[in-house]
């Protein structure tokens, strides 16, 4: 097994799957010659040609809409949205179309499209190149949403997403791209969509998170370990379907729950995690359910001190964990 960065794992997944399955193709802005603005598709046009690595016009609704059509026709499109912030022009195609095609046709048609989108902040991307979008989609039945945090999961889940017979929104935290490295098998393998992963076992408090924050939480947990506080850390990985059983088990294990996400709190993914716990295992709790999230502002500012103000960090998280442990 080789050590790969997160973004290399994405490229590997696309490469492996395109080699195995002729019906897989990529479309999006600058995915061809340019290899994608983050290089996720670098080298693929040279290998698979212009027909299978399609540079599209600047029109997200068409990118997704054409992918939907091609997927109904039996192909396996992987659409790239250059930044998750620019997925909204395609919102109607994703929510009204992709997510409903199987249901509205009573299982006659289906829509095996994968939509990749880099999201998240901390890269001086400012208001419109830093957003988290998961909470604006996770309410939609018919969609699947995953956001792996490691190269190993990224590759296995991207292949699973491509092979999935239903639409999958595949969210990649762009700060993970080069920051996160790990062992990745060379061949093709899949990981199950809908399963959370326990990233660290512990007995004092339970933390739920996903994406980049998983790494910050691990760092924070290391710090707390030195003080003898043991953190049970669950990486959701999949936002919809959400692994309800894993959530309940982990919450019951310590009775103290902290939910961490970069995205703002109100109506965010943490709300549902909390609601599941409050519904399923309220009496196992020894403390109120806390959420540590971004502030209630429309997005992350450009100015470095303001961006820093927005962002969570291992130390902010550690502080919150400590408070909860003391409760």
């Amino acid at each position: 097994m080789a050590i790969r960065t997160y973004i290399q794992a994405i490229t590997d997944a696309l490469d492996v799957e395109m080699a195995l399955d002729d019906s897989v193709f990529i479309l999006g802005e600058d995915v061809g010659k340019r290899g994608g603005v983050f290089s996720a598709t670098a080298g693929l046009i040279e290998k698979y040609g212009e027909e299978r690595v399609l540079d599209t016009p600047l029109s997200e609704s068409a990118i997704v809409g054409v992918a939907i059509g091609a997927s109904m026709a039996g192909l396996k499109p992987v659409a790239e949205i250059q930044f998750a912030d620019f997925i909204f022009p395609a919102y109607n195609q994703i929510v009204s179309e992709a997510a409903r095609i199987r249901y509205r046709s009573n299982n006659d048609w289906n829509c095996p499209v994968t939509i990749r989108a880099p999201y998240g902040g901390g890269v001086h991307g400012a208001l419109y190149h830093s957003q988290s979008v998961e909470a604006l989609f996770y309410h939609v039945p018919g969609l699947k949403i995953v956001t792996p945090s490691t190269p190993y999961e990224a590759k296995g889940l991207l292949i699973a997403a491509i092979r999935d017979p239903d639409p999958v929104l595949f969210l990649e935290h762009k700060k993970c791209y080069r920051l996160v490295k790990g062992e990745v098998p060379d061949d093709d393998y899949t990981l199950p969509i809908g399963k959370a992963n326990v990233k660290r076992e512990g007995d004092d408090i339970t933390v739920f998170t996903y994406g980049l924050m998983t790494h910050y939480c691990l760092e924070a947990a290391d710090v707390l370990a030195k003080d003898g506080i043991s953190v049970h850390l669950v990486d959701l990985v999949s936002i919809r379907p959400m692994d309800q059983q894993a959530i309940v088990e982990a919450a019951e294990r310590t009775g103290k729950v902290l939910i961490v996400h970069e995205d703002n709190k109100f109506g965010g993914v943490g709300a549902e995690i909390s609601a599941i716990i409050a519904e399923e295992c309220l009496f196992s709790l020894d403390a109120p359910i806390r959420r540590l999230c971004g502030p209630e502002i429309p997005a992350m500012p450009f100015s470095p001190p303001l961006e820093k103000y927005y962002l969570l960090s291992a130390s902010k998280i550690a502080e919150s964990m400590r408070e909860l442990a003391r409760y």
Partner: protein
Amino acid sequence: MAAKHEELGLSAEQLLEMYQYMLSARMTDERMTLLQRSGKINFTVSCQGQEAAQVGAAFAMDTAIDWLAPYYRDIGLVLRFGHTLTDLMYSVFAREEDPNSGGRQLPGHFGGKKYRTITGSSPVGTQLPHAVGFALAAKMRGEQSVVLTTLGEGATNQGDFHEGCNFAGVHKLPVIFFCENNQYAISVSLKMQLGCENVADRGVAYGFPGVIADGMDVLDVYRVCKEAVTRARAGEGPTLIEAKTYRLKPHTSDDDDMRYRTKEEVEEAKKRDPILVFRTYLAEHGILTPFLEESIKKQIEIGLDEATAAAEQAAFAPPESAERFVYAEQ
């Protein structure tokens, strides 16, 4: 001078078949209206006035290999692509056997893999990018299929029209954008909808022809569509076709069109009712006799009676089935 249909290479039999489809669409619509008025069904969307456009386009296609992404008025089109009268009745009665959706969608939301008809939704214009996706798939796989997608003139103002057309234009895909311009988008007239005069004017913005057809003349529509199909199959790319028609009935069974247009205007339009126009043509060319006309009508009546009876007796899907098919079942 050869008759119009001879120039188009259409036989008398084919013309009669076309007429039959047009009449079927009209009579189906009329029947549904009756059913709605009598409270047996909830909702209808009328095709009246647009039968020539729909049937003319349908006959230009090869239903064995081509694809259809229709819009909600296209009774004439989907009949030709395989929907039976009974299918249509299942749909308005929201029965389990409705091939579009098992009774989940409103009438007019056509679909069916077996009919090469792509599932559609209510938000207008979204079907265009899908049709383009099918055309892209056909091109990538080297298939001969052409994709026909339809929409109203109001819907050509949606972003998806623009984005879908442009994508197809860049890649010269085998798709036909067929606009049934019936002069109204619910209550809003053409000149309040479109900055330009003709929908067809929009083709140039995507680098392909925009062509006007007389939507009240099934043969003219057929001619224009046939040319577009030939272009598409030859790899020459998309065509935008505007069939100029008129919506003879209110927008849907929920609408009252007298709030925004006059009886006189509608009556005037009826003089060019596409069924009338074609009937006259057929009569003039000795193809349709009053006797034949009666027998065709009778046939359709019988078909509609049977279809209605079958649908009325058919079952709804079981209530709990509402939970099914959100995702693939194992």
